[in-house]
C-alpha cells in the first residue's frame, strides 16, 4: 500500500463521517446544545459573583469542552454499526490504522467546530478577553483538542461496542485526560490572563508531549482493538 493510497483511505473515512454528520446534524446540534447548557450550569453553580466566575472560567471552559465533546466519540462507531459496515471496513486492504486516522480527523474537525461556538459563548458569559491573545489561544485549543480527540476516538472503538457504552467511555477516558486538563487550563490561563511566572511554555510542551505519546501509543495498538 503506497503512502498516497493510505492517505486516500484516511481522507475517505474522514469525508464519509463528516458528510454523514453534516446531513444528519444529530450529533453536532446535540453537542453544541450540551456545551451551552453546561457553560450556563457552571455559572449558576458558582453563583452570581463575577469575580468567582472569572477565576474559574478557564477551568469551566475546558471541562465543558471535555464533557460535551466526549458525547461525539461513540457516535463515530455507532455509525458503522448502524450501517452494518464494521466487517466491510475491516476487510479493506491496508493497515487498520487508516480507519483510526480517518475517524480521528473527522472527530477533530467536529470538536474544533463545537469549540468555535463554545469558546466565544464562554467569552461572553464569563467575560473572558479572547480577542487580543487569539493566536496563542488557538494554539492551546488545537493542541489540547488533538490529545483529547486521540484518546476519545481510541477508547470509543471499545466502549461503543459494549453494553454499557455511555458509562464505559467516561470511565476509561476522563482519568486519562487529567494531565491534559491540568496542562490545558494552565496554558490557557497563561495565554488569557498573563503569565508572570513564565509557566505557559512548559504547559504547552507538556500538552505537545501528551499528544505525541498517545498518538504513537494509539496508532501502534489500534489494530489490536479492532482486529481479530
Amino acid at each position, binding site marked *: *500500500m*503506497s503512502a498516497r*493510497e493510505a492517505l*486516500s*483511505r484516511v*481522507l*475517505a*473515512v474522514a*469525508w*464519509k463521517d463528516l*458528510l*454523514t454528520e453534516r*446531513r*444528519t446534524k444529530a450529533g453536532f446540534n446535540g453537542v453544541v446544545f450540551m456545551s451551552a447548557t453546561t457553560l450556563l450550569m457552571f455559572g449558576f453553580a458558582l453563583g452570581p459573583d463575577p469575580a468567582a466566575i472569572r477565576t474559574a472560567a478557564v477551568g469551566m471552559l475546558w471541562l465543558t469542552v471535555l464533557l460535551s465533546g466526549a458525547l461525539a466519540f461513540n457516535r463515530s462507531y455507532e*455509525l458503522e454499526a*448502524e*450501517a*452494518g*459496515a464494521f*466487517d*466491510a*471496513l*475491516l*476487510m*479493506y*486492504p*491496508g*493497515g487498520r490504522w487508516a480507519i483510526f486516522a480517518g475517524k480521528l480527523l473527522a472527530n477533530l474537525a467536529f470538536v474544533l467546530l463545537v469549540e468555535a461556538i463554545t469558546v466565544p459563548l464562554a467569552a461572553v458569559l464569563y467575560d473572558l478577553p479572547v480577542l487580543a491573545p487569539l493566536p496563542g489561544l488557538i494554539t492551546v485549543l488545537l493542541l489540547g483538542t488533538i490529545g483529547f480527540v486521540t484518546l476519545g476516538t481510541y477508547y470509543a472503538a471499545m466502549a461503543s461496542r459494549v453494553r454499557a457504552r455511555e458509562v464505559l467511555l467516561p470511565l476509561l477516558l476522563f482519568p486519562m485526560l487529567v494531565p491534559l486538563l491540568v496542562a490545558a487550563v494552565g496554558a490557557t490561563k497563561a495565554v488569557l490572563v498573563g503569565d508572570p511566572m513564565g509557566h505557559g511554555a512548559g504547559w504547552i510542551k507538556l500538552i505537545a508531549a501528551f499528544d505525541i505519546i498517545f498518538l504513537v501509543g494509539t496508532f501502534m495498538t489500534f489494530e489490536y482493538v479492532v*482486529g*481479530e
Partner: protein
Amino acid sequence: MLRGANLTVWPGEVVAILGRNGSGKTTLLRIIATLLRPTRGTAVVLGLDLARDGDAVRRRVALLGHTNAIYPDLTAAENLGFALRMLGRPADRAVIESALGAVGLHGEADTRVRGFSAGMQRRLALARVGLLDPGLLLLDEPYSSLDPEGAELVTARIARMRDAGGSAMVVTHDVVRARRIADRVVALDGGRVVPCGPNDYPFNGDATELSALGGEG
C-alpha cells in the same frame, strides 16, 4: 462456535454451505475473511496462511455479509465512491455508474440510500462487492430480501466467479438453489462439516483449506 470443521475449496469451485441457525456458518466465513481468529487449527486461503498473511488474504477475499455495509445517509454513488477509495482506487464516476447499472440501480446514483427498499439496499451491497476482483468470494445469505431478478444477479455473479477460475463459498438456507449454483454442497452440523453431495474434486492449485477450526461467535 465451530468444532473442528475441515473443508477444502478448490479453485474454480463453488461450495454451498447449509446448516441450521447457530451451526457456525457465519463464523466459518468470518474466520476465512480474517475477521475472527481461529482459536486452534490452521486455515489456508488461496495458498496464504490466515494467521500470518491477513492483509494479503484481505486483498484476495470479498465478503458479502448479512449486513449490507451501506451508509444510509450517503447516496448510492457516494457509497460506491467510498468503497473505491478504500480499495485505493479513484472514485471514478463511470465505474460507479456501470456498477450501479449492473445491479439494476440505473438512475438511483444520487438518491440517498435511506429511501431505498431492503431489496435495493441489498442490490447496492452486491454492487459494492462487485467492485472487488477477488480470488475467493464469500456470500452470507446473499439471496435474502432480493426479488427473483435480484437473485439472478447473485447467481450470475457466482457463475462469473467460477468462469474466472475463482472460488466462492455461499451460505444459504435454500437447499434447491444450493444444489443449482454449487459444485458441491456441504452442511455444518454441530460445528462440523459434513458432506452432502458429490465430493473428491481432482483440482490442482492454491486451495482454501480449513482444518480443526475453533472460533468464537
